[in-house]
């Protein structure tokens, strides 16, 4: 099956491996990720101000494109997922934002949140199925792995509807599917320090170290994430505590897919 795919800025540059491994693995699992045309950067953070319209338009353009190309939009980077999914919710439920955004875009047919935004992990779970992945695994990952969710996939849970915001299980289920042993640790849904690292490097340092030492204390040998910024913060501040990887890298390893 084919599915419209939004890669986002970082996956085109610093996080190429996340993008490439994800595409190859999807192909191996029978899913074609079709990159949408003329996508623009989503802005990387969801603008919460109720009068923010222009900052949401690139997400709406991508959503509208996907609406006419299969009705689903696949994301991989957690930040893109957060921005696009929350913007989509605005288009669905906030008449004012919807009206004003459509005024800007002048689409042939107004966009009203019709597209379904799904994250790559949700694709693995609901489209491919973890059981199918289990069968496709050639190199089981026999390691203890801590899932790092961070904030963007989970919160706000009312909109993201990704998993239980305090006790998520999807990445743990994924780890089990590729033959690993998930390690549940209390800081897996705590913030890594996010964009603040550009202005105040001390705060992300403390937060990232707390995350990784919590994972280590509970027995993890490595930590996986779906977010390039989380990966950067965790590696830059706690790379010596535990190795941090993209979850797709482990998927590729398990499936025997080489980039």
């Amino acid at each position, binding site marked *: 099956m084919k599915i419209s795919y939004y890669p986002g800025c970082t996956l085109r540059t610093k996080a190429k491996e996340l993008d490439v491994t994800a595409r190859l693995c999807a192909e191996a699992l029978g899913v074609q990720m079709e990159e949408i045309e003329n996508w623009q950067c989503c802005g990387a953070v969801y603008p919460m101000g109720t009068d923010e319209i222009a900052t949401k338009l690139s997400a709406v353009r991508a959503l509208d494109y996907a609406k006419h190309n299969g009705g689903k939009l696949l994301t991989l980077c957690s930040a893109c997922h957060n921005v696009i999914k929350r913007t989509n919710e605005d288009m669905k439920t906030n008449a004012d934002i919807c009206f004003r955004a459509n005024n800007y875009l002048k689409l042939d047919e107004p966009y009203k949140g019709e597209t379904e935004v799904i994250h790559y992990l949700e694709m693995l779970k609901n489209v491919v199925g973890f059981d199918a992945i289990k069968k496709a695994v050639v190199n089981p990952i026999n390691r203890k792995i801590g899932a790092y969710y961070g904030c963007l996939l989970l919160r706000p849970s*009312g909109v993201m509807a990704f998993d239980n915001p305090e*006790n998520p299980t999807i990445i743990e289920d994924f780890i089990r599917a590729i033959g690993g042993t998930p390690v549940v640790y209390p800081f897996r849904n705590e913030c890594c320090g996010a964009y603040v690292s550009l202005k105040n490097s001390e705060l992300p340092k403390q937060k990232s170290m707390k995350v990784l030492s919590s994972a280590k204390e509970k027995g993890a040998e490595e930590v996986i994430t779906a977010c390039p910024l989380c990966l950067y913060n965790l590696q830059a501040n706690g790379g010596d505590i535990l190795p941090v990887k993209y979850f797709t890298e482990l998927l590729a390893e398990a499936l025997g897919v080489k980039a």
Partner: protein
Amino acid sequence: MQRIGVFICWCGSNIAATVDVEKVAEVIKSEPGVVYSANYQYMCSENGQQLIKQAIKEHNLTGVVVGACSPRMHEATFRKAAEEAGLNPYMVEIANIREHCSWIHKDMDEATEKAVILVRTAIAKVKLNAPLTAGESPVVKRALVIGGGIAGIQAALDIADAGFEVDIVEKNATIGGRMAQLDKTFPTLDCSACILTPKMVDCAQHEKIDILSYSEVEDVKGFVGNFSVKIRRKARFVDETKCTGCKICMEKCPSKKGLNEFNMNLNTRPAIYIPFAQAIPNVAVIDPTQCIKMKTGKCGICQKFCGVGAIDYEQKDTFIERQYGAIVVATGFKPIALDNFNEYGYADNKDVITSLELERLMNAAGPTNGVLLRPSDGEHPKVVTFIQCVGSRDTSGCGKPYCSKICCMYTAKHAMMIREKYPDTEVHVFYIDVRTPGKNYDEFYRRAVEQYGVDYIKGMVGKVYNENGKLMVQGSNLIDNEQITIESDLVVLATAIEPEPSVRKVATLLTASIDTNNFLTESHAKLRPVESPTAGVYLAGVCQGPKDIPETVSQASACAAKVIGLLVKDKLKTNPCVASPDENMCNGCSQCANVCAYGAITYIDKEFRLGGGKTEIRRVASVNPAVCQGCGACTVTCPSGAMDLKGFSSKQIMSEVEAICKM
């Protein structure tokens, strides 16, 4: 031909000072249908009433209008007077010329003119009045109490002591309810079992009380004074009449891994069990999902050892049907599930427990024999942290929007009990507000702080997590504007309470209304707090709203008083101003039944003559006058105009409108 008599009251000067009463009486004399018109200083006095009675007899009146004070004052008085003179009491109408006229107007002409119109309006109505007779329905002198917790027990005892038969239907194997699980009770710290179990025994020994344990209400028909209730007696696989409660079966049962519900699943029990030592009835019950014999066919050990032959693996649910005059709902509560509160780590950490679990851990008959030990490793906790308002006052959708009311007091109780028993244990309490209104309640809480040195921290906990085997409780200390993390050994969540979920089914069966939080609605929040809007149904305990034991007991006794007041009557007089359908117009569409808050409307198939010897069976609405409260909601919703309300018929109201408009 109508013969109306009109009586204008002066009410001393209350009316006469602003309304020219003589003129009103004079003008009204010429109204069509009026044969007698008089005015008098005090119509409500003995002489005034005599005047009415005399006129009814002398002038053969068919209707009476009294221009006087509000009908809410003296309608009943004048109706009674009319009845004594042989006129149907519902042929009397009141024109309110005091509260609605003389008292609010200053200009005599204006007030007099209005009084004439109000009297005319009443005349227009009374002309269309029809004699009504209050119906009577018999009262079955037996009460049903649903739920055998402290609320049900108290209500049953009070009703039975007044000499009426009471049945307690309890869904569990024993009565006692939540209170039986508690260790001590606030604000006196007396042992819960010590004050509850004697009452349980009283119930069992009372000749007027029949305890139907392990039973559920299956169906309810009928109405106030005459409910017919079908009760399911669940199979307990033990003959209740034979079992002596010797417990040898419990000892011998090889399947001992069942979770002990009474101990909040903190330890295990055999497949055949008596919930706790003081259970009433003291009779075993088999959990068929756990029993080896019932799952595999092999075993039967309990049967072999039972000296009285009480074990019956083939037992089936049975049904009984009984009649009751009144029903008390006392279905109680349960703590909410904590699935939406994973930030407190309840699911992941054995040492994060609910307050009810702590009750069992502190109780001498509990899993640790009353020694406070951590569930994870059986160690004595040195730092115990309480979190209040877990799931209460939560409008985010995760919890309950209401205050659970009992948590502040029981948390203070727990904190004090721990400090009393284990002075070396540090106790912290995170709170949003401490709410302790009630006699000796605030004093009780302050004692926890001042005498027992419990550390109260104003602020809420954001996260509980496990680090190096310690429970880290991270939260706000708002007074000092800081974020703190308390390294704890045991975390106790003061979990919100919600009505026992089975109340929904009970409410549906009883057509008792329920609010958005599943609490049963009382008839009036202030003045009728123990009565359900459904006549003959009364509410006791937490099923009506969060409350503690003293309040529950008061409400239960209040219920009992109401029930006794009902059961002492041999017959019930019913309000005759009820809805009634014109069956020729009714098309059986069910709209009226849908809006009826009382379930007073049902449908019957009725044969109608079509002429030419043909008949037709049609479904038509039928109003039970004993249940109808006379609100009239159905009359407006009826699309064919078949439904009308006696005493406030559409024609009557239309004629009032006409009389007012015709100035």
